[in-house]
């Protein structure tokens, strides 16, 4: 008597697993926004919380572009308050939690590795003006 092994279900499963891996495998470790984080040797897991994302193309708060940059440069028409970006202050201020720890609320900064200090410094100035006292810089772990 000949018995047949039915492997159709297994093929289905493997096909789905393969498609899943191929879709989510990103060889350049870049997100669809083009954010390229630098690498860091620290092993501290990133905390959740209010996040500002700094790209060469602009500054995003809560997934919304609040400031447009020119390839990592500050355009001449940008509205500044001192060294801070007015639009970034306005976008970050509502995100400050009222039940923050005594040392003050913290902000996760996801900054592209190519962004110069002059832009990042102004974003931090904006965060300070919005009431954030501590900053946690995100990076790719090397381990």
């Amino acid at each position, binding site marked *: 008597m000949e018995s047949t092994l039915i492997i159709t279900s297994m093929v289905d499963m493997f096909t789905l697993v393969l498609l899943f891996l191929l879709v989510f495998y990103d060889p350049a470790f870049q997100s669809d926004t083009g954010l390229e984080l630098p690498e860091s040797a620290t092993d501290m*897991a990133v905390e959740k919380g209010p996040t500002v994302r700094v790209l060469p193309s602009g500054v995003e708060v809560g997934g919304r572009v609040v400031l447009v940059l020119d390839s990592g440069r500050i355009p001449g028409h940008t509205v500044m308050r001192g060294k801070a970006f007015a639009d970034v202050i306005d976008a970050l201020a509502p995100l400050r939690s009222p039940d923050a720890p005594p040392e003050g609320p913290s902000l996760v900064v996801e900054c592209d590795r190519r962004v110069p*200090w002059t832009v990042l410094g102004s974003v931090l100035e904006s965060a300070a003006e919005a009431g954030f*006292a501590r900053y946690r810089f995100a990076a790719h772990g090397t381990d």
Partner: protein
Amino acid sequence: MRRRERNPVGANIDLTPVLSTIVHIIPIVLIAVRFVTIVQQPIDARPLQASEAPSREVLDEQERERVVIRVLESGFRVRGVGEGETQLPCRAPCAPADYDYVALSDAMVSARAQHPAETQVVVAPDADVPYETLMGVFDAVTLRRDGTTVRPLFAQPMLVNGADEKPVPG
């Protein structure tokens, strides 16, 4: 009239080659994929607050006893290790990977020995220094890794404005 032959109803498709291919591809993808880990580096930037932002001269006066790292487009200048400033130039063309993070880490080990009670180190970047270089500086100043041994150095890097090419007096 001869009827065209068709596969009989219920004939099985031989899926063995398909299954074999998929079984080979999955381990290859799993080995090639590098799972992304997002980590964080806590940074103190309180002096950046507009009302408190110190000028270069005020910073020099207030931070005379602290370890200060200027991150310039030409390399690092470290104060607080021995007398005066220690210059750690980068290799041309001074891209982020060309900075001498190993020498900076060595300098931080010496600075830690000279300032055992200090936990903060001041990092003053030049305007055009990219974030990638700053992250390399943070790694060099916070931890020293010798093989499997990890030694804490300065736990609180503090970012300030004000790097420039002129040397710090005293």
